[in-house]
C-alpha cells in the first residue's frame, strides 16, 4: 500500500504531520496560505494576547555561532481581535491559534473572538521563557494551569493543546496537570531560556538580555522530553524543537510524537523545508513498509 502522511493528534486530523511552529512567520493569512501550499500540514499562529503587543525593541533575534537562534521578540502580536478578523476569510488552511494570557478569563475572552473563524485547535502557550507574567510563569504554576485548561475546555469544542517547555516547575508535572484538566494534546517543547553577550561591547545582545534558544541545539533535549512524556502519559504529542531534516522528524515519531512543528529550520533553509521533510518521511515509510504515520509512533520505546 502507498504510504500517506495523514496523522491524528487525538481529535485533530491533519493531512500532513509537519506544522509551522508558533511565532514563526505567523501573523498573516496570506503567508499561512503560502506555507500550506509549501507543504505545512497546519500553521500555528503567533501567540496572541487580549491586547496588541509591540514586543521588545530590537535586537530580538540572535544567530548562535554553534547553530540555532536566541530570540526575545517579546510575543509581539496584533491581539486576538485583530487577528481573528484577519483570518475570518480562511477556508483552506488548518490554523491552530496560539494564545498567551495571565488568567483564565484572558483565554476565555480571546476564544470568543474566534467564533466566526475556522480554527483547527487552540494551543495554549504555557512556556514562553522570556516574557513576564505569561508563558512559563503561567506554566510553572500548577494551580493556574489547572484553572486555565479547565476554563478553556469549558469555553470551546475545538481541541485544545498545551505547549510546555523547560521552566522552574518540571514540565512533566505541568503535562500531568494539563491532562487531569482535560487537555487534548501536548506540544513539547518551547525555546530554552538562554543568552548571548557581545565580547567587544561587553553587553547582552538581545534588548531583553534573556531569550529563548531554538533550532538544532535543542533537538536532543526536545526529543527526550517527547520520549519522557510518551513513556509516562497516554496523551497525543506534537514534537517541536530543532527539527530540520526528515531524520529529525522520524526520531520524534519514534519517540512518541504523532506530529511535529518546526520554526528555526525556516531561518536556515527557508520554507522548502516542509516539502523536503514530507518527501523524506514518505520515502522512509516506503522503505520500512508503513502505510501511515501512526505505524511508527512510539516504536523506540519498545526496545
Amino acid at each position, binding site marked *: 500500500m502507498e504510504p500517506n502522511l495523514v496523522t491524528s493528534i487525538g481529535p485533530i486530523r491533519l493531512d500532513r504531520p509537519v506544522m509551522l511552529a508558533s*511565532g*514563526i*512567520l*505567523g*501573523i*498573516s493569512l*496570506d*503567508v499561512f*496560505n*503560502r506555507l500550506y501550499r509549501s507543504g505545512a500540514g497546519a500553521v500555528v499562529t*503567533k501567540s496572541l494576547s487580549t491586547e*496588541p*503587543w*509591540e*514586543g521588545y*525593541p*530590537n*535586537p*530580538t*533575534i*540572535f*544567530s548562535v*555561532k554553534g547553530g540555532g*537562534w536566541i*530570540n526575545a*521578540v517579546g510575543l*509581539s*502580536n*496584533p*491581539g486576538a481581535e*485583530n487577528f481573528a478578523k*484577519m483570518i475570518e476569510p480562511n477556508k483552506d488552511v488548518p490554523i491552530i491559534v496560539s494564545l498567551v494570557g495571565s488568567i483564565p478569563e484572558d483565554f476565555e475572552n480571546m476564544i470568543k473572538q474566534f467564533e466566526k473563524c475556522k480554527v483547527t485547535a487552540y494551543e495554549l502557550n504555557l512556556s514562553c521563557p522570556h516574557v513576564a507574567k505569561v508563558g512559563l510563569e503561567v506554566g510553572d504554576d500548577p494551580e493556574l494551569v489547572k484553572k486555565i485548561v479547565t476554563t478553556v475546555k469549558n469555553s470551546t469544542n475545538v481541541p485544545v493543546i498545551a505547549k510546555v517547555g523547560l521552566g522552574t516547575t518540571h514540565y512533566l508535572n505541568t503535562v500531568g496537570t494539563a491532562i487531569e484538566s482535560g487537555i487534548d494534546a501536548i506540544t513539547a517543547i518551547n525555546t530554552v531560556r538562554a543568552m548571548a553577550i*557581545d565580547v*567587544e*561591547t561587553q*553587553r547582552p*545582545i538581545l*534588548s531583553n538580555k534573556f531569550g529563548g534558544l531554538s533550532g538544532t541545539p535543542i533537538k536532543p533535549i526536545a526529543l527526550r522530553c517527547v520520549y519522557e512524556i510518551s513513556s509516562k502519559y497516554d496523551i497525543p504529542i506534537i514534537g517541536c524543537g530543532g527539527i530540520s531534516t526528515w531524520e529529525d522528524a522520524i526520531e520524534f515519531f519514534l519517540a512518541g510524537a504523532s506530529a511535529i512543528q518546526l*520554526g*528555526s529550520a*525556516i*531561518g536556515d533553509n*527557508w*520554507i522548502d523545508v516542509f516539502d523536503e521533510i514530507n518527501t523524506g518521511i514518505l520515502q522512509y515509510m516506503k522503505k520500512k513498509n508503513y502505510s501511515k504515520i501512526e505505524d511508527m509512533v512510539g516504536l523506540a520505546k519498545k526496545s
Partner: protein
Amino acid sequence: MQRNHNHTTIVTVEKVIDETPTVRTLIFSDEVMSNVLPGQFAMVWIPGINELPMSVMISNESGKAAFTVRKHGAASTGLFNVQVGQQIGIRGPYGNSFDLKEGKLLLVGGGTGLVPMMRLLIHVKPTDDVTVLIGAKSKDEVFFEDLANRLLENNVHKVIVSTDDGSYGEKGFVTDLVEKHLSQAKYDAVYVCGPEIMMYKTVQSAHSRGIFVQASLERMMKCGVGICGSCCIGEDLVCKDGTVFDGEHLSKNKEFGNFHRNKAGILENY
C-alpha cells in the same frame, strides 16, 4: 573561516558626514559590506539602543561601506548619533538585488531610498543612458545630487531634482516627473526606492506602459532572516523574497501602496 552572514560583526565608525540636518552617512571598513549588491541591506546593531535594517551605502574608498540614516524614532536616531570611533554591529547582507538592464535607464529615489540607487549607479555600463530623479520635500533635504553626477560622469546622463515646495530644482512630486519622462521617451527599465507612495506611483506609471520596473521595498523588520514574519506584505516576506520586487509581481499585491504592518503586526494604512 568564511563569515556567516547571520553572525554579528563589530565595526568602528571611521567618519561621519552630515548630508542634511536630519541625514548622516557613517563610514566604516568592512570588505563584505563594501561588495553587497544594490538592493541588499544589513541589520545594524547600535549597542544598548536598537537594531534596524539599513541599505548599504557605497563609499569611495575600497573595502569600506556606509550607512546613510535619517533620524526618526529611537533606533534611527540612535544610529544617527553614533560618533566617530564608536562601535556598531552588522549582520547580512540580506535580500535580493536589482536586475540590471542595459540601455535607457530611469532611477527614481527619495530620501534614504537613494542609497540603493547610488549602489546601482556603480554597476551601470558606460553605454547606458541614465536619468536619475531625486525627490525631496525642500532644498534642505536634497542630498546625493552631486554624488550621482560624479558616478555618472562617463555616461550620457541627467540628474534631476524636484522638491515638493519648489525651493530647489523642479517644483512638484517626483512621481509627476516620472510620468512625464515615461510619456516622452522609451525607457528600458525603471528602478525606484523611496517612500511607498512614490514607489507605488512609479511602478504604476511604468508597469501600465509595459516597461520593466523594480522597487526596493521597506517594511518593519525585526529579524531580517525570514523567521519573525514582521516584514510580510501579502504573501511575500520583504527580507527573504525582496527587498526588490518587479512591477508585474507588485501589481498583484493588494498591500503594496496601501498597507503596512506596525510593530504589533497590525495592518495600517499608508
